[in-house]
């Protein structure tokens, strides 16, 4: 009888320790994923901040291209109010497309193309886009680790109970505006 009690206690202790370890690793992984998402938001915000400057610079040279400006402003507003990775992916994609059409304007306006401020903004924006890509890869790597942990046995048995769920990857859809050639109107 005594031996049996010890065995039961032993098993219970092992299970409790395993629960603690599993819980902690869930916490660590999901915190990492959240931090990585915050990194993306920093870069996205930088991009939103640069756009009004770009628009006002370009307006000085190509004031009648109002359709393009509206498109950019609209895409920016939409991107700023997007929630979650999937919606953000969609909105950022639209924004990239709209920005491309603004940069395409410089082909038609040589003065604009030579403007120092414009070149600087172009450089900053393309750098920010690279940084969004970098942050996206880091985020997706972390989400992948979390999702693998949540899905693999036996951790998958308790993930739901503890309230941890898989997170979305931040994907930028391929077949959208960002991939298509920019229309240049003269």
């Amino acid at each position: 009888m005594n031996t049996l009690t010890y065995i039961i206690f032993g098993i219970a202790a092992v299970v409790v320790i395993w629960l603690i370890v599993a819980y902690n690793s869930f916490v660590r992984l999901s915190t990492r994923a959240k931090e990585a998402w915050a990194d993306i938001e920093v870069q996205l915000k930088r991009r939103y901040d640069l756009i009004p400057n770009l628009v006002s610079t370009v307006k000085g040279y190509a004031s009648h291209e109002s359709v393009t400006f509206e498109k950019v402003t609209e895409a920016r507003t939409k991107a700023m109010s997007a929630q979650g990775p999937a919606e953000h992916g969609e909105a950022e994609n639209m924004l990239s497309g709209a920005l491309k059409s603004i940069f395409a304007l410089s082909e038609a306006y040589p003065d604009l193309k030579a403007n120092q401020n414009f070149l600087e903004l172009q450089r900053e924006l393309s750098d920010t886009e690279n940084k969004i890509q970098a942050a996206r890869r880091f985020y997706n790597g972390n989400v992948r680790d979390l999702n693998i942990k949540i899905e693999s046995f036996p951790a998958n048995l308790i993930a739901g109970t503890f309230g941890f769920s898989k997170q979305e990857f931040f994907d930028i859809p391929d077949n959208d505006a960002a991939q298509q050639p920019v229309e240049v109107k003269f």
Partner: protein
Amino acid sequence: MAVYQSYDTNVRKTWVLMTLFFLVVIAIGFTFAQVWQDSSILYIAIIFALFMNFFSYWYSDKIVLSISGAVAADKQEFWDFYTMTENLAITAGIPMPKLYVISDAAPNAFATGRNKEHAAVAVTRGLLEMLTKTELEGVIAHELSHIRNKDILLSTVVVVLVGFISIMADIFLRGMMFGGGRDSDNKNGGLLVIVGVVLAILSPIAVTLIQLAISRKREFLADASGALLTRYPDGLASALKKISSYSGQMKSAHQATAHLYISNPFRGKNMAKLFMTHPPVEERIAALMGLKEETGV
């Protein structure tokens, strides 16, 4: 898994190195104290050894950067280098290291610092001029991997502690050879000989320590994790090819800092073969190409 093991090994080796240095300096102090019959020398040696250990932890990176003639890189002037590093640091999930540029035509690079929050990457002007964007990205990713794998503290502390011992040995040995005849009559002359012999024995040990610390495996490991970061092993492979085929000598490198660089700065010299701090470039390129086939990246 392999990377986590290397974290632990690096931390342990740093402790071993600091303890050894402590013991060596105290042993020297003890010898002096015996010869002069003055125990205060031993206390001074103990304080000095403690001081050097703390000093090497906090200031090694600054010493390394300054003996290499590295100057802080300006973001506007070195735009590609700077933004590329920012992006790779984001992908690797480490804080942005400080960036330095060395005015040297030979292409080379190294990383230093005590942890990832206090890290620095230095590259030569020759490297920036010679490499394409993807090649430079490969090199930076290699250096960031050294930071992430915690290689930098050990290899930087080695410079100051081991470098100090070998400089001491140099001074005493030269003193024996050129000035030995002068004071051979008095007691100090005999002491100099003793210390000189002790240090002459220590010097090869110091060299072995460098080799011990700078396991050649870590270069392979940094190559591999760097390639994972850029997802483009060819970049680093072709950068290594270019760096190793450069025929000139690197002027700003020092014997004590040679192991820090991505590629041995003293190629061709006899000393280089003796130290062998780096695996042959051909092997590293072959490993990178193997990685490419294995992972399909």
